[in-house]
Every structure is written in C-alpha cells, then in structure tokens.
C-alpha cells in the first residue's frame, strides 16, 4: 500500500517489532467516527435523574465553597468546577469503580463528588479541619480517596498526567482489567511531560484515557493566546493516539463519548485522548479578577449551554415536572448546608498532627 510505503521511511525502521507504528490499520479518526454515529447516550430516566442530581450537587457545593471562601473560612487557593459539571459526571458514570482509577489536577472537588464521596469530608478539607478527607493537611487541591481509587488532587500543572500513566502501568502490570482516567486542562496540555507520557503510554499500550478539560482559559490566558494547536484532540496524533472532540457541556454526549473511548482502551488498544470542550463560569481561582473575558461571554454560555439547564430541559420534555426537579434541588441544598455547617463546626486538626504522616515507617 502506498500509505505503508510512505510512513515507513527506511527498511531498518520497518524491521523493528512491537511498537505502535507497526499497526498499519491504525486510524486516528476511528473513534470520533464511531462517536459521531451515536452522539447521545441513551440514558434511562433514572440515570438522567441521577446525572441531574449529581451535577446539581457539584454546582451547589461549589457555590457554597465560594461563599465560605468569601467569609474567610476557606483559605489559599480554591478552584471551582462550576460550569464543568457534565465532564466529571458524564465520564465517571461510565467507569467500573471496582477496577478503574481516576487522577486529576487541583480543580478536583467535582471529581470527588462524582464518586459519591460524602460532601461533608470534602467541605471539611476545604476549611482545613481534622474531619477533612486529608485530615485538613491537603486542602482544596490535595484530596484523595484510595478507597474509591481516586488518586488526587495534584497541584503541579501536568504532573497528574505522568502519574496517571503510572496508575495505568499498574493496571496493566497487575492485569486487573482497569483503566486510568487522567484529567488535565488546556493549560496543562502545553507541558512537556504530557507528551513524554503520551509517548510511553502509546508505546506500551497503557490502559489510559487522557481527558483535556478545555475550559478555554489557562488561568487568564485564552487557548488562542497560548496554544499553537487549539484543537486539543489532535495533540496525540504524533504519538498515534486517537482523539475525540466532545461537547463537554452535554452530559449525555460526554457519556456517549466515554462509552466509545473506554471500550477502545479496555480492549487493549492503548490510550485515547478526549478533548472535552467546556467552560468555567468562575475565575481560575477565587482571587481571579476575571478581566480577560467579558461578562457577556460568560452570560452567553450560562444562558445557552449550561449543562444542568440543558439536562433539565430534556427531563421536562420527558415528562418530569418542575416539582420533581425542585424536590431534588431542595434535597441538594440540604446536603450542602449540612456539609457547610459540618465544615464550620468541626475542630481544626490536633497540634500533634503536624508531625504525623511525614513518613509511613519509623527509622
């Protein structure tokens, strides 16, 4: 075939065995094509109600976190997930929680809530209390739940991608059938170690789904100002990693894409790169004056693309009443209020905690 001749430059290269470049049937577009055929996940009504409930929980939780920050109860950096809810819910609802692992950066509250982890221990971590999931020693950016195979919560932009490669290596090494879902942002997508990881993950066919949550701004710098290639799903091409371009504001579309991507990875075909196009309504962190974009831009997304309002419309069309949805809202408000109260009233860590957990063993 002409294509084969063209891609294999030297005889020496074509004699090499085992690498991904041997796969002459490889097609970078195959997953996107499969996804285009069925873009909306055929969710049952119960599933949809659950997606709605979970997204709303993230939204209300984050709003409250923002408020607690304003009151000085949460300190330091606090990155809210408002606007991006459909990404975590759409993807994580497709995981096999007995086997699969998840890792992300510092905008991590939503991913934890998506696991159904008690909002109380998350909020208590934000307020730096002993009852927090990291005993108050991690804070907003550093939360983990090994019980749920959620590996954090990492503050160095892009580091979680290489670490996720390691989690995927462990899945493959242990032959446990699991995959790793590694989230990072459009900003992290310009870090060198991301591509080092792409290379090894593809070379070793690691079971990993790379997810770029493209919320359009790396802190205050728009993708257009920071990235030579803003179609991030193409960024794996040089490593022969198939890409998928997904509307991250539609939970049913996200879930449909997840089905295609996860199947590919579970079948031992190596990594997939998903670009989830989304938007954060709030600043990069709480101390972001947001001068780099207009209010109209934010308002436009809120009015026309909001993931929660979008799903609400679908549910109403399916015959759900406003009252049914209101009841969910009421329940969520109660959960979030309780979490906030708990996080305010829990004691700070004991002073003796200063020295615990530095090392595991005694020497």
């Amino acid at each position: 075939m002409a294509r084969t001749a063209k891609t294999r430059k030297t005889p020496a290269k074509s004699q090499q065995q085992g690498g991904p470049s041997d796969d002459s049937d490889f097609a970078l577009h195959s997953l996107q094509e499969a996804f285009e055929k069925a873009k909306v996940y055929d969710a049952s009504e119960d599933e949809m109600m659950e997606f709605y409930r979970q997204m709303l929980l993230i939204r209300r939780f984050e709003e409250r976190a923002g408020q607690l920050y304003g009151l000085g109860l949460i300190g330091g950096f606090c990155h809210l997930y408002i606007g991006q809810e459909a990404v975590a819910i759409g993807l994580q609802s497709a995981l096999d929680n007995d086997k699969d692992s998840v890792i992300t950066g510092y905008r991590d509250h939503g991913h934890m809530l998506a696991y159904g982890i008690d909002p109380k221990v998350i909020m208590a971590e934000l307020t730096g209390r002993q009852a927090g999931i990291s005993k108050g020693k991690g804070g907003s950016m550093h939360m983990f739940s090994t019980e749920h195979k959620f590996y954090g919560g990492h503050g160095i932009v892009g580091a979680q991608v290489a670490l996720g490669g390691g989690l995927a290596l462990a899945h493959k090494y242990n032959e446990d059938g699991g995959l790793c879902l590694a989230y990072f942002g459009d900003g992290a997508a310009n870090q060198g170690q991301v591509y080092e990881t792409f290379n090894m993950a593809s070379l070793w066919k690691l079971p990993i789904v790379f997810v770029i949550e493209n919320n359009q701004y790396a802190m205050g710098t728009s993708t257009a100002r920071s990235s030579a290639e803003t179609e991030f799903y193409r960024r794996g091409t040089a490593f022969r990693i198939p890409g998928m371009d997904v509307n991250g504001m539609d939970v049913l579309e996200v879930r449909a894409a997840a089905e295609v991507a996860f199947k590919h990875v579970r079948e031992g075909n190596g990594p997939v790169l998903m670009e989830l196009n989304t938007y954060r309504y709030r600043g990069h962190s709480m101390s972001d004056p947001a001068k780099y974009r207009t209010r109209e831009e934010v308002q436009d997304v809120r009015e026309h693309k909001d993931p929660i309002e979008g799903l609400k419309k679908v549910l109403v069309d399916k015959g759900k009443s406003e009252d049914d949805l209101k009841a969910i809202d009421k329940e969520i408000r109660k959960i979030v209020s309780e979490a906030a109260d708990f996080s305010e009233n829990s004691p700070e860590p004991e002073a003796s905690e200063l020295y615990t957990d530095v090392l595991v063993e005694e020497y």
Partner: protein
Amino acid sequence: MAIELKMPALSPTMEEGTIAKWLVKEGDTVSSGDILAEIETDKATMEFESIDEGTVGKILIPEGTENVKVGTVIAVLAGEGEDASEAAASAEAATSDEGEQQPEPPASSGEQEKSDDEKDAIAPSKPKSEPKSDPAIPDGTNMATVTVREALRDAMAEEMRRDERVFIMGEEVAEYQGAYKVTQGLLEEFGPKRVIDTPITEYGFAGIGTGAAMGGLRPIVEFMTFNFAMQAIDHIVNSAAKTNYMSGGQMRCPVVFRGPNGAASRVGAQHSQNYGPWYASVPGLIVIAPYDSSDAKGLLKAAIRSEDPVVFLENELVYGRSFELPELDDHVLPIGKARIVREGSDVTIVSYSIGVGFALQAAEKLAEEGIEAEVIDLRTLRPLDRQTILESLAKTNRLVVAEEGWPTCSIASEVIAICMEEGFDHLDAPVLRVCNEDVPLPYAANLEKMALIDAPRIIEAVKKVCYV
C-alpha cells in the same frame, strides 16, 4: 426567613471594599448564579453571585459606597413564599438594632483564633527517631568479596524474586544490561515486563514510576545518573515525597529512585554533582548514600521494602570496588543508622559515599602520626543518625566532616549545625568541613583534581582541630 447578603471577601486578607455597582434592584427575582453586584478593592474587581433564590428585598448599602467592611449586611433576600417588603423591614430593624456595631467577624479571626493560638502554644514535641542497630552476623558466616555493582544487582534480583510487585525501569536497564551494568542479567531472569527500557524522558518516566507506586507496585526507577534526575526532581519532591502527608496518610508511594551520583571522572560540570544535600532537605523522602558492598546491598533491599519513597545515591567510581559482604540469605540493614567504620579516640571524621574511602585513607595516615581518628559512615542522609555523631563527638571532642560535594548548604553544614545545637559542650575545637571547591567541576585533569576532596585535605583539617 429573609436571607442576609453580606459583604464578601475577595481573598482571606481583604478587610473592606467598594460596592462598585449593583446589577439587581429591589424587587428583582434572582436565582443562584445570578450576579448581584460588582465589588472592588485596590487589587481587583469581582462579581458577587447569588447562591440562593429569592426576591431582592432591600439594598442596604448603595452602589458607590467605599470602605464597606467584610461581613456587613449589604442587602436582604426574601426566600420563596415570603413577602419581600417584610423581609426588608425586618432587616432594617435588625441593622438599626446593631447600630454602630462592627459586623460579625469571620469565624477564623477574633476570639476563636486567640484560643486556638493558646492551644497551639503548647507545641507538640517532634517525634524522636531511634535508629535500629545492624543485625548481628552469625559466627562462621562466610564473607564473600563482591563489587558494589554486583551487590546492588543482587539486592534487586533478590527483592524481585521475593516480591512480584517489584520491577525496574529506566534508560538502558534491560537489553543494554544497564549503562553502568548494574542491572546485568535482570532482563534474562525477569523478562521485559519487570525490566523496562524507557525512552530518554526522565520527567515522564519518573512520574510514571511514582504513579505506579501510588497504584500499588514497587518500582525501582534507575536514573542513568542523578544529574539527569534534575529534570524529574518535581516528581521526586512534589509527587513522591509529599503525597502521604497531603493525603493525611492515605496515599503510599513506595518507590526507589536510584543511580550514580556525584563526580565521576573527567565528565565535566553538568555530569558531576552531588545531590545528597538537595534531597536530604526534603521531608517525606528517605535518602541513602552507601559506600561499600555490604551497605549497598543491605540498604537497597531495605529501600525496596520501605513503604516510603527512597532516593538511593550510588557512586560510579565506587561501582567496581570490591568489599567483603556476609553471605546471608537475607542481608537487610536498618535505614537511618550510621556506621562506625573505624574506631578512634582522638577525632571524629564524618563522611558518606565515596568520601568514606578518603576518610579511611586519612585515618590510616593519621594513625602513623599517633592520631586515632574515628570514621563514621552516615549511610543514610535522611533521616540523619544524630545520635551516632553526637556520641562519637562526646568521646573525641573534635570533628571534621568530609563530603564529596559543594560546601554551601551541604550535609556538612547540617552536621556542623547538629554539633553546635546539641554537642556544643563536648567541642574542644570548631567543627571543620572538607568539601569540594565551590566551583562547577572543571574538565582539565589538574583542575578537576584540585576541585575534589582527597585524603591530604582531610588530614590537614584533622590536624587543625587537634591543634597539631
């Protein structure tokens, strides 16, 4: 009940701000997420969003008002089914009752903080480490003569046989048999699943190794030399060392980063550096730098078994040296314990890695002149065995630190600080350090020799502290 909207803080340090603009008016219906107002400080402008639903009852602070204290009620919102005007009235009553009172301070300041400070004033005592002693070698144990290179290889092979989770990854570790042949034969015995050649991509594979440890494996990550690990130092420090603490003890990271460290021979400045002090400054890491074959094997086995992340610093110039090693089924040594490699009563020389060889040479020469030097091999740089150093100092009252590395912010600096803080009363002379010259390592043979430590310089320092 009416919901009071309070002046928010844009940051925990903000105390007051300006209400630049109200974006809603009394009587407006708002839902959560709606922007109510713009708040300005000297640093930034931020939008103030509603997190509740309801009707704006009364705007208490008009736009343009400056110096509005954080926590001041700036508006009231009537909840569902409430009369907005009633809410406004009750709010007004409430605010007039308060009069000139300061708004309620956030919970984290004021009185509560004071009591917390008092509580914290009773500082917890830092846990003391009590290093374990080396296990006794049974009488009649055969002593084999083995190179450091073989000892390291055997340590890895034994641990890989013992624990399926242990694997090694790095550049040229498999098919090439190791850039310095430390992994010789491992591929043949354990196969490519457990002996993994990586591309030249230190940051990436250090991250993958660290992640694999988080995922439950026991990776040994070989750096061809630690000079290249500078590209990966972020994962060693930020990902491996801190995660256990940041997770409140949930996350384990039992990874070993190993490879040659320090100056080799004529390889120039970028390939010749001792990273011991760098890593030893990081809480959450174990740092080991052995000298001889027995310690190399016993401590590498301990490192692989440790639940903590370990930086294991070898030395290329020592790989080929042969030492006695007890032939035991399972030769494991305690981490965190220094070793007295030569006993003496007149002066203590503290060293580690290749420096121990120079210290022993110096001690032999000094003995000819009637000075009996005690030589301590630190073996572990973090946690440092203060006890062994201080006990020796109490005996000899004089101490010199010999380190193949730069003097500034060195292990030598640390040992001297320990002697000052905890051994001052035992000192008969200032503690001296013998380190490399404070320059990037030159290539020229004569300059390189001048820049690196050697036995004569240690002898000179010892004589100085002995006042001879």
